[in-house]
């Protein structure tokens, strides 16, 4: 958390932290940042409508915008930036449809506040494309038919991408573990296992 790159070159904290701390309530602050400790001065209270400036690095492009401190990264992606590949399934961190990579790690965008994501590198499913060309994991999902309705698929693809970046040769059990945070109600898990395996091989082959 401490050594995140800040694409704006602005020191971390400042406006972002104050607006965020003051408005979402102590419980949420503890959950989200773990920084509110007993004895620490309670920051100035701001109203929920008070907008905070953030700069978000999404798929290599910097987006500067005003957000309410309570807005999640998912909300900002979909409702403010119209980057709708990232899907909303439960909006409470249980289904994985909104999985994105934050600094290379799979994270639920619904459980990440937009203000929290400042200074990180965010990758959505669109960010795996090279122009119109699908990424390796996406191609494997096509080839292995690793989806049906496709609604959970962007999240599955991002979870697989994150898994393979950390573990380039996952075993069957490691795939099951790494992908278990993403629900697929169509039940395409057997084909998702195949896709992750194929993608791992193709990534090693330099595809």
């Amino acid at each position, binding site marked *: 958390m401490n050594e995140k790159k800040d694409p704006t070159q602005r020191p971390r904290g400042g406006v972002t932290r104050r607006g965020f701390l003051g408005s979402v309530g102590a419980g949420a602050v503890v959950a989200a940042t773990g920084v509110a400790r007993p004895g620490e001065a309670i920051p100035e209270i701001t109203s929920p409508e008070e907008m905070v400036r953030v700069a978000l690095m999404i798929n290599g492009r910097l987006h500067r915008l005003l957000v309410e401190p309570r807005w999640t990264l998912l*909300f900002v992606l979909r409702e403010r930036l119209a980057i*709708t590949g990232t899907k909303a399934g439960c909006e409470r961190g249980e289904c994985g449809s909104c999985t994105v990579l934050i600094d290379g790690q799979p994270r639920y965008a619904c459980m990440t506040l937009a203000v929290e994501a400042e200074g990180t590198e965010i990758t959505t499913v669109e960010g795996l494309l090279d122009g119109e060309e699908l990424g390796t994991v996406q191609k494997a*999902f096509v080839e292995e038919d690793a989806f049906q309705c*496709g*609604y959970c698929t962007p999240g599955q693809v991002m979870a697989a991408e994150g898994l393979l970046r950390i573990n380039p040769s996952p075993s069957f059990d490691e795939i099951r573990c790494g992908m*278990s945070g993403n*629900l697929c109600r169509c*039940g*395409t898990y057997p*084909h998702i296992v195949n896709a992750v395996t194929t993608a791992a091989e193709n990534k090693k082959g330099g595809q």
Partner: protein
Amino acid sequence: MDKESPYWIDGSVPETPGTGEYPDPWKKTTIVGTRVPRVDAYERVSGTAVYPHDVSLPEMLHGAILRCPHAHANVLKIDTSKAEKMPGVLAVLTGESPGADMPWYSRRGQFTSKLFDTRCRHEGEEIAVVAAETPLQAVDAIRAIEVEYEVLPFVVDDEAALEPSAPAIHEGGNIIGEPSVRERGDLAAGFAEADVVVERTYSTKCEIHAPMEPHGSVAKWDGNRLTIWDTTQGVYSVQEGLARAMSLPLANVRVIGHYMGGGFGSKLEVGKYTVYAALMAKTTGRPVKIFMPREDCFLATGNRPGNKMTVKIGAKKDGTLTAIDYKSLGSPGAYPAGAGSGSLAAYLYTCANVRTEDTTVYTNAGKARPMRAPGFPQGAWALEQAMDELAQKLDVDPIELRLQNIATELQAEENRPYTSNQLAECLRKGAAEFGWDEARKRVQSDGHLRRGVGVAACFWGYGGGPPSTVIVKLFSDGSVNLNMGASDIGTGTKTWAAMIVAEELGVAVNQIQIEHADTATTQYATSSGGSKTVPSDSPAVRAAAYAVKVQLMRMAAEQLEVDVSDLELRDLKISSQSDSEKSIEVTGLEKLGRQGLVIGTGYRDPNPEDKITFPFAAQFCEVEVNTHTGEVRLLHFLGAHDSGRVLNRLTYDNQVFGGIVMGVGLGMTEERVLDRQTGKMANANFHDYKVPTMKDIAVEHSCVPIDIPDNEFNTTGTKGLGEPATIPTAAAIANAVYDAIGIRVTDSPINPVQMARLIAEQRKEA
């Protein structure tokens, strides 16, 4: 078949919309039956597919719905004054708003409630709706609405609801009509003949559909024309429901449903949210989007009722079934919908003396909607476990017992024979590929880890049929546009449709563009549900392509001056079979060039009159039970399916495995919990309601299609697959668990909590 039609099929008689030339069955195919990746795969994996939840229109408002927090209550007073003054709020809708006082109906058109009913019969009934500039403003505003309730006594237990003293949910009491009875022969005589009788009571828990895309719509008015983007399995069904609710001409309601994130039966009908969006879009003059939060989806978008089933089977020593007595109780919640489960018991096996009785009762719970093979997985859980028990008592292989009793005709009113029934092949070929005999001989015990194998069989009680209309356009450059009304709910509809056109016309699959699921621009199709999209719409697709082919051949015959019967079409080239000199590319047809395109209209051919068509299946599984922890690991699952001809083997496998995964949910993980103290759902979220994850599935999955075309049924030889893929799964698991540890698990789900208890009880008895 009318009496046996699934309850969610409206009473109307399906009819072929037009006559046409129906092609003969394929003798051999080059594209159909192969593995073809989906034509819309790029859109779905790249994030570029626009689902209804992704739709955003200029000036669009966002809606939120306030729901009743009580299981049973009267609304006395609603005060919306604070909400109306909140920032960003543009509309607040209650039952007293102009135009909102409208009746609400079940799918068969009975009026049982209102758009906003002041009597709330289950937790999650709609009280008021807000439209605001942003989604969060709308949520803030519904929280500011003050409602005064008179909380009423409630009942959420099916059996308690039968008691005369139970709170009445509708006038006339809680029992919904007379029990539905199927009866033949003489039950008492049948049991008198029996050498062996098994009897047991089973139960399954209520399941929630829980598609990954929540329910919702976007509504936009242009003058008197309403356009709806809806996450739906059937655009025409939503159009009809909206037009009826809002008294609009059908032509004025355009419903678009290109992509959708799963339904499983919960998205077959118009939702109240769609009507709210339309009403508020009218009053504000701006588009309105309403998507339901996940918790609300758990409460108010349907479910598969739990059933309590008592089944008694009698058989002679030689395995002949002499009598089946089946009683089922289920609740569709607070409004009419089906909750029966008796079809399998009545018809899967040959038996002269059968009685099934389905009792359904209102409870203060969310209304059921058809969920993937409504009633069948529950019935299989009871019947197929009973058959397993019978096989033990008779000391025969459970596969042999089933093979011996397969029904060749529907043992109902007219005893119509099936156009095809390959259940025997499913059992034989499935067992061979699974290694059934070897698995049963294997040492099954390794200390506390015990292995077992199980099998279960089924049919699915709906075949499909007319109406369906499809249009195929072939342009002068040989590219093709396919126009059909069916939704692709994830089953690969667009892909097999393109494959059929490619097969018929010799066009490459990627040369075919598809327009679908739009009531304004595409042809009529019934909803994608009931495993009937392939058998209903694929023959119409083929007929449309065939109609194009016939015209092209006539053009070529004229231009080449040969007889039509001498010509064949291959890879967009028409050649004379007798004179190899005479051939022409389709793009070289002069008449096609002058016309610009050729249009072919295809209709679904009528079903044969004196026969009936069902898909059949058998599933096999091997489990490992940990007798220390009660955990059950699935080692291998195999689905052997008779769904007629296989169109696309890639998506076929996926469908079979997906059905098995959902069946694992019913069998091992899923259960709606209604709190007895409050009547409220205690697990309305994905954390506490356990949809299977990747960690819950079997280590190995196999698919064994019995790829025998049913050419008597339709011109593609296809039957349905989606529902049968999930019917026998849970029962097969239960039978495997019995084989492993000798415990008959009568109540779903087979989770470690229950297993640990049952294993402890078994030890105590021993």
